[in-house]
Structure formats: structure tokens, C-alpha cells
């Protein structure tokens, strides 16, 4: 026995060294590709506003990146800040604990930053501390989830949830070409959230215009597992579907898995939010996915840009208005094979 030991030990060492090398290499390649994720979509304005001005210190805080879209929010904001040599972006740890997020904003206030770009975990819960920041003379830009007081932010950047539903519904109507006998299904996100209700309302309103309605509707929870569960139930319940709108491309990974398991391909599926994977597969045209609607993950990057303009006293050069607007609602365009190349660079990796 003992004679085998050295050899075995040497074998182990070789395996160990190999494993370590793989780990290191893996970490490196991950790191470098991660940096490229968003840089292609993020750019300067190409106007006089790009001229370097006074130094702007911006504090940034967002919820934990437990979702591809949310991860991209922070990455895009950082990439945007790097474009400007007069912007110093302080990024606080992503957190779903409002207590911690409040203390991050308090730290920014103590630090006397010039502006704060804030995507709150819960808009209502972050309102009072945001107001405290505004009272301290800090420009607060509210992103995606609205505060419940107009005094808590100088400007707000929002996605268009109702518009997502309208875009998806309009695509279905156009594709159905007036046929009234089509079966439409919908897989929603977390049902109690106002944003989900807005999306569904927009979808139903758009369908109504061409005489269609949602025949089957289930709700998931924005996660891959919940998407899989909801979709398999839906596919059981509806033996034949013509159109399926899924609110969210991250949960869509699970939805697609369920569709594959059920061997179904008789329908056209429309995604939501606009992940890179989904856009790639729209481009390739090799699955039921034929379209998706965009919910921009570059909202916080726009927040950074607006914060810089506001602090430097610049205006949005393409508007006649001198002041930066109080609210920006970003469009929710439909992405199909025809225009996918336009949107692919700004898509997020799920």
C-alpha cells in the first residue's frame, strides 16, 4: 500500500494544480467579458454637453443584482460614469434591505455628494431619506420605482410598463391580421406589483382594439423557477395557444424550458424587458420567440447623465426648454427580427 502513496499524492497535486489553473483562468475570462457587457450601448451625448465641466460627485444605490436586468442597471451606470472624466461615481452595495439602503443614502448626505442616483428597493420606504437629501441641497434622481412624494426627487427616470403591454398587444393584433379566433395567453410577473398590473392593463387594452382578449393568464415571480412552474401549468390548461406574452425575459428562461419539455411550438411567443439571449434567439429565428418588448436597463445610466447635467447647470441640448425635465418616461418598443440589430447592443445579459 505504502508504495502507492507518493504516486497518488503526486497525482492529486497535478489534479489540484490543474483545478487551480482552471479556476484562475475562468475567473479572468469572466472578468474581461463582464466589462464588455454594456460598454457598446453606453456612450456620450456627442453634443457640447460632453465638454468637461466642474467635478460632479454622484452617489449611486440600487437593489441587489439578483436579476439580470437589475445587474445590468448597476453595470450600465458605472460604464456611463466612466465615459466622463468629470464624474466621480460612488457605488454603494446593492441591497434589498431598506434599512441598509437608507444608511447608504445617509452616508452620501454626510459625504456632501453633489447628486444621488437612486433606484429604491421600495419607493415609498426610501422617500423620507431622499427628501432629507434634497433638503440638504443634493440633486436626487429617482430611477424606475417612484417615490411617493414629488419633493423627494429633482427628476425621475421611468420605464413604461403600460406601454410594454400596449406594444406587445399591438404586435399580436398586427400579426393576427384581423382574425378574431386566436387564443392569447399571458404569463405575468408578480401580480400584486403595480408594474405588473400596468403591463397587463396595457396588453388587454391593445388587444381589445382588434377584438382579441387574454384567454389564459397565469402569474409568475420574475424568477426562472417560477417561470417554469407557471408556464407548465399554463400549457396544461391551454392545449392550443396562438400567442403567448411573457412579461419578463429572466423568468422567460424558465418559460422556454417548460415549452421545450411540453414539446409545444404552435404559437408565437413575445418576451418582455429585452434580454440579450432573447434577442439573439429572435435574430436566429430558431424558437417560438418572435419578439420582445424593451424595458430599458440603461435607466440608471440616464440617471447619471441627468445628474451630471443638473449639477453642472446644463440643459438637454435637443430640447428648447432650459431646465432638465422633471420626469422622463422611456419608450417600450417592440423588437422583432427586422429591428433586433438596433436594440441588441443595449440588451442586458440575464
Amino acid at each position, binding site marked *: 500500500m505504502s508504495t502507492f502513496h507518493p504516486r497518488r499524492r503526486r497525482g492529486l497535486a497535478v489534479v489540484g494544480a490543474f483545478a487551480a489553473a482552471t479556476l484562475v483562468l475562468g475567473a479572468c475570462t469572466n472578468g474581461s467579458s463582464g466589462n464588455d457587457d454594456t460598454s457598446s450601448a453606453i456612450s456620450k451625448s456627442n453634443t457640447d454637453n460632453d465638454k468637461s465641466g466642474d467635478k460632479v460627485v454622484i452617489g449611486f444605490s440600487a437593489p441587489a443584482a439578483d436579476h439580470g436586468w437589475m445587474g445590468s442597471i448597476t453595470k450600465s451606470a458605472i460604464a456611463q460614469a466612466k465615459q466622463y472624466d468629470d464624474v466621480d461615481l460612488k457605488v454603494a*452595495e446593492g441591497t434589498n*434591505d431598506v*434599512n441598509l439602503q*437608507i444608511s447608504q443614502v*445617509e*452616508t452620501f448626505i454626510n459625504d456632501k455628494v453633489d447628486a444621488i442616483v437612486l433606484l429604491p*428597493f*421600495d419607493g415609498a*420606504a426610501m422617500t*423620507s431619506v431622499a427628501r432629507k437629501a434634497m433638503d440638504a441641497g443634493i440633486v436626487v434622481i429617482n430611477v424606475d420605482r417612484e417615490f411617493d412624494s414629488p419633493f423627494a426627487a429633482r427628476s425621475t427616470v421611468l420605464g413604461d410598463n403600460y406601454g410594454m403591454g400596449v406594444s406587445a398587444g399591438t404586435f399580436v393584433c398586427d400579426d393576427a391580421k384581423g382574425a378574431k379566433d386566436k387564443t392569447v395567453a399571458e404569463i405575468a410577473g408578480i401580480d400584486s406589483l403595480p408594474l405588473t398590473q400596468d403591463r397587463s392593463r396595457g396588453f388587454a387594452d391593445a388587444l381589445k382594439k382588434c377584438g382579441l382578449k387574454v384567454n389564459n393568464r397565469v402569474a409568475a415571480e420574475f424568477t426562472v423557477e417560477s417561470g417554469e412552474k407557471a408556464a407548465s401549468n399554463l400549457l396544461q390548461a391551454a392545449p392550443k395557444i396562438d400567442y403567448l406574452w411573457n412579461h419578463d425575459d429572466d423568468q422567460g428562461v424558465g418559460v422556454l424550458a417548460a415549452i421545450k419539455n411540453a414539446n409545444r411550438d404552435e404559437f408565437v411567443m413575445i418576451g418582455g424587458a429585452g434580454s440579450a439571449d432573447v434577442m439573439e434567439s429572435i435574430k436566429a429565428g430558431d424558437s417560438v420567440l418572435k419578439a420582445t418588448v424593451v424595458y430599458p436597463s440603461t435607466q440608471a445610466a440616464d440617471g447619471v447623465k441627468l445628474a451630471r447635467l443638473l449639477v453642472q447647470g446644463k440643459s438637454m441640448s435637443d430640447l428648447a426648454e432650459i431646465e432638465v425635465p422633471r420626469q422622463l418616461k422611456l419608450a417600450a418598443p417592440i423588437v422583432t427580427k427586422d429591428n433586433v440589430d438596433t436594440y441588441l447592443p443595449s440588451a442586458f445579459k440575464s
Partner: protein
Amino acid sequence: MSAPSVQDPSMQVPTPTRGDRGGSLGLARNLGLVIALVVLCAVGVITAGDRFASTDNVLTILRLAAVIGVISIGMTFVITGGGIDLSVGAIVALSSVWATTTGTQAMANDIGWIVMVFSAVLVGTACGAINGVLIAYGKVVPFIATLAMLASARGLAEIIADRKTQIIRNQGFSDFFGSEPFGIPVIVIMFAVVAAAGWFLLNRTTFGRRTFAVGGNPEAARLAGIKVQRHTVYLYALLGTTCGIAAVMLMSRTTTGSSTHGTLYELDAIAAVVIGGTLLSGGRGTVVGTLFGVLIFTTLTNVFTLNNLSTSAQAVAKGVIIVIAVLLQQRIADRKT
């Protein structure tokens, strides 16, 4: 009734005596933690200078520490008594939601904002008492009983709130908790009061000595005449009360009640208690150590935020600190015994 001197020879844990815990607030025993906190503060001062050492920043750290700190002090009692509670975050959520429903708020507008405080603390205590009864009289393992409470309390909170965030409209509540007597925020004062009360209760009262006895060896404690089951219920109810207080603090900080409040607070609280030197197996516990544990974590978070450091690095640092602090504690404890 005096504390029974339970000493099972097979037990590794020495039953602490009064002198051991009193006097110097156990500073010597918490040496590892003191060193860790001092090192952290030194790093803060070196890297962030006046931004770290300012009064405003210290208050920011304390406000952040207050919520989790109050829960951790309650948790110290339960763990010292040989139990564990995974439901604290969910209880915080339920308390905050219950205290901010339109019904409660209407009552608060009629009678006074104290109604909201009262209902939060009451709901917390009730949940804790249910945990305690299930564990002590129902013989359900603490891990499972409180896991059930974790699921059902947060579920109930979601039902009551309809998964919406409830905004506190009562001006009196916001005014009181927003005030800063002597420049110190109210919730920091509450934290200090709870900490002092917790220290006194654990180290200077019969209740505290019974807690050590029950945690160290429940059978011996029973033979010594302690009503172990009743005491266990008290311990969990006490933790529930601190959860209610934490809910009030969170309500004042966010001006909302929400079913998402307090998510994963159980892990933060247990981590703070354990690196503080309280034995997970029960029988030994220290409120001062727990306070250090809480302060170490919140100071770490603060230093990272001030220095604009990456999110993931902080998680790694937290893990490393837990291990180092526990190793240091063990070394020092070994040397002393």
C-alpha cells in the same frame, strides 16, 4: 431564588459566575472583538479620514446598527437559553404591517401615535410567545417551529398588506421618531436603552441566571426547581418584543410598513450573536459581545460604502471577519481556562 450551580462534568462549557461577566463589562473576554472593531475603525480613519470620524457618520452607523442590534440582543437571550429563532425577520415584517394598516393608523390618529408602537410591540411579543409555546410545550424543535413562523408570519404580512407598501401618514409618529434630543436620534437612544436593559436582565437578575442554567443543562435546571418550559416561553416572547421594537424603528426610518421589511435579518442577528461569543449550543452568552458583533458588521458596511468598494468584496470580508473573530475568541477563551 439563587442560581443553581449546575456543573455537569461532561460539559465543556463552564457555567459562568457573576464575577466573570460583571465588573469590566467583560472587556477582557471580548478582547478579540475589541481588536477587530479597533482595526476596522483604524482602517476607516486611514482610508476615509474625517468622513469616517465625523459625528454625522458615527450616528449613521448607529442608526443602521439600531434595528438589527435590538433584535440581536433578544436573540442573545434565546441562544443563551439553548434555542434559535429563524423567524425574527418575518416577525418584524408582520409587526410593521400590522401597525400601519389603515385601521391602526385611523386609531392612531384618534388616540395618538403610541397606538402604532403598542400594536407593533404586541404583535411581535405574541408571535414570539407562539414560538415559545410550540417549542416548550409542543416539543417542536426550535429550528422547525421558528421556520414555520418565518413562513406564516411573512405570508400573513403579505395578506394583510396585499403585498403593497403601507405609508405612515401620522405626523405625530414621524415627528417624534424624527426628532434628535441632544443631537442623538430617537432610535439610537432606544437602542442604547434596550442594550442596557438587556445587559442588566442577563447579568444582574434571577431571570438572567435562569437563562444560563436552562441553556447550559435544561434537565439540571429542572431538577434545581426552574420551570424550564415557562422560562423558554418567556425567552421567545422577549425576542418577539425586541422584534416589535425593531419594527417600530424600521417604520420610523422608512415611514412605511411592508411585508418585505426585515428580510434575512435572522442571519444578521445570529451572526452578530455568535461572533459576539454566545455559544450556539446555549449556556453562555454576552450582551456586550453581541453589541460588538453588531457594531463590527455595521462599521464594516460603512467603511466599504465610504470607500466605494465593490459589492462582492464586502460579502467576502464579512465571511473572513466571522471566521477570524470566532478563532480569536476561541484562542483567548482557551488561554484563560
